[in-house]
């Protein structure tokens, strides 16, 4: 423990004098702590009294703050009117703020002006001394020796074996964190889109006729079969893979149609997976004149006129396109499932 002051606020408690530091190390030797400068309140009783009153006022502010909180909590009506919610929130916040700041500022002001402010000095102790270290080393050696673990390798080796294996059950126990029945990446290859499944609007669930889309239109689509799924979790998982953006552009403006995709569109109507091939955000920002499709999360940009090729951003692959046709009743339907897995790339995806 270091030197402590005598408690007289006019005196410095510190007793470092000149030359306490290493001598000759620097251009000048350590001059020691600067002389203690008394505060106004140390020498003038009136100033001290004023500080005392200021602290008391701050504590009163705190009391007022608590009252403001109670007014906010009990007096303001708690209705569906959000303006009242805001008023209440403001009163609660300001009330607590006053209550807390009053105490905090008051106590600190008290400490700063009225409590002794001389700095004190404490010596640093070494974390260990050499003889203590040797003693500890001796104890460790004795303990190991007495346990006999070094002399009896059979015990040691079987213990190591057991200790390595024993935690494994705790790891295995977590296997059922995955609750899916057919655990594995295989199910990521398929969605519920299939031949003849109607394209319906999200969220209304109404089917779409080709004539419903004019040039420049964009529509958010889910498969009709999604509406039949009752289990909430399963529904979300299937929706997460099968959401589609349906757009119509002037057929003249479609620039690229690769082999085998000639019948995937219908009079300029194109359907593409909304799940970004980067990390899976819904890509839904469609610019009708540039035919660009932008993902708001990481800004991958896809060109709808060129089979959704990546023209900007981090996505590694084009968006999968859903082949569509028109059924007997004139509604848009899928020709098949997507021909490749939708969404972000994963290790097992391969060339699919």
């Amino acid at each position, binding site marked *: 423990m270091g030197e402590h002051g005598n408690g007289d606020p006019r005196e410095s408690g510190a007793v470092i004098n000149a030359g306490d530091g290493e001598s000759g190390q620097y251009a000048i030797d350590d001059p020691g702590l600067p002389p203690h400068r008394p505060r106004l309140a140390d020498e003038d009783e009136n100033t001290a009294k004023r500080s005392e009153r200021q602290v008391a006022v701050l504590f009163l502010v705190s009391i007022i703050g608590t009252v403001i909180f109670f007014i906010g909590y009990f007096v303001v009506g708690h209705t569906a009117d959000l303006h009242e919610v805001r008023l209440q929130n403001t009163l609660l916040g300001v009330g607590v703020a006053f209550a807390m700041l009053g105490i905090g500022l008051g106590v600190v002001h008290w400490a700063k002006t009225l409590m002794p402010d001389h700095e004190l000095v404490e010596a640093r102790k070494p974390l260990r001394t050499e003889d203590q270290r040797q003693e500890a080393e001796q104890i460790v050696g004795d303990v190991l020796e007495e346990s006999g673990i070094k002399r009896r390798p059979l015990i040691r080796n079987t213990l190591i074996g057991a200790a390595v294996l024993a935690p494994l059950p705790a790891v295995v126990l977590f296997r059922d964190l995955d609750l899916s029945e057919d655990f594995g990446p295989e199910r990521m290859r398929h969605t519920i889109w299939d031949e003849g499944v109607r394209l319906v609007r999200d969220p209304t669930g109404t089917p779409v006729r080709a004539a419903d889309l004019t040039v420049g239109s964009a529509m958010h689509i889910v498969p009709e079969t999604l509406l039949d799924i009752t289990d909430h979790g399963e529904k979300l998982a299937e929706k997460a893979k099968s959401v589609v953006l349906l757009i119509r552009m002037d057929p003249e403006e479609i620039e690229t149609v690769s082999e085998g995709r000639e019948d995937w569109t219908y009079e300029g109507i194109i359907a593409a997976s909304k799940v970004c091939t980067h990390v899976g955000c819904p890509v839904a920002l469609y610019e009708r004149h*540039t035919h660009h499709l932008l993902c708001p999360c990481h800004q991958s940009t896809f060109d709808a006129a060129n089979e959704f090729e990546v023209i900007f951003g981090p996505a590694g692959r084009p968006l999968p396109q859903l082949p569509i046709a028109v059924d007997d009743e004139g509604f848009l339907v899928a020709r098949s499932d997507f021909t490749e897995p939708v969404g972000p790339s994963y290790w097992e995806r391969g060339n699919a």
Partner: protein
Amino acid sequence: MKALSQKRRHPFAGVALLLLGLLMTGGLYAAATTINEAQASSEAQEYSASDIDEGEKLFAANCASCHGINAEGTEDAPSLIGVGAASVDFQVGTGRMPMQMQGPQAQRKPAQFNDEQTQQLAAYVASLGAGPSVPGEDLLDAEEGDATRGGELFRINCAMCHNAAAAGGALTEGKFAPSLHGVEEKHIYEAMLVGPQNMPVFNDANIPPEDKQDIIAFLKTYESQGTPGGFALGSLGPVSEGLFVWSGGLALLIGAMVWLTSRSS
């Protein structure tokens, strides 16, 4: 942008704009090229022949330099034949047209024409070819719409560009989806109907009139309910919150720290 738009109040603004329009060349992203098959959304407004005549004069003086003397379009601006009255009412009514300067997209600014002139321009353009007409009052009454349903439709169809709190957002190459705060019901409706700039078209077959009304109801409810938590910091989400905590929050804390560790006089 603001400073510029104020300068344009000058009486010669129209002339200056004309000259500017003539001088400007280069790519134009704005406005509609679509041959819109959409049907008029409510009872088609009847325009008188004098409206059309007045509109033609206004058009020749203010718009023809870019859109062509017969609105057939030029290198700088698209044809307006068949875009309909709704398109004109939106573009001119929100001040986007006449355009201040060529850029990634036309900016919203104080309207250059009064309601009557806007109507005359709309009448003239509507007379050039069939297109969506200005919606009737009955479709715009936010009180009639269902805000819950409108909210759901908004989040699926609009929020990805305009932000969940309708505060706007960025598109590619300097384009952006504007904030929807303070936009008139009529203009919200027309925007959905015609798809101005790069916005997709949400015609009545895609989002029926009553759904559009629900969306308007949601936006107006949202606007009138205020922000219950306090100042919304632009409703821009975590970025503005983080910025606030690193500026205002940190400044308050450092102020307290410096005061706390400073020596009393």
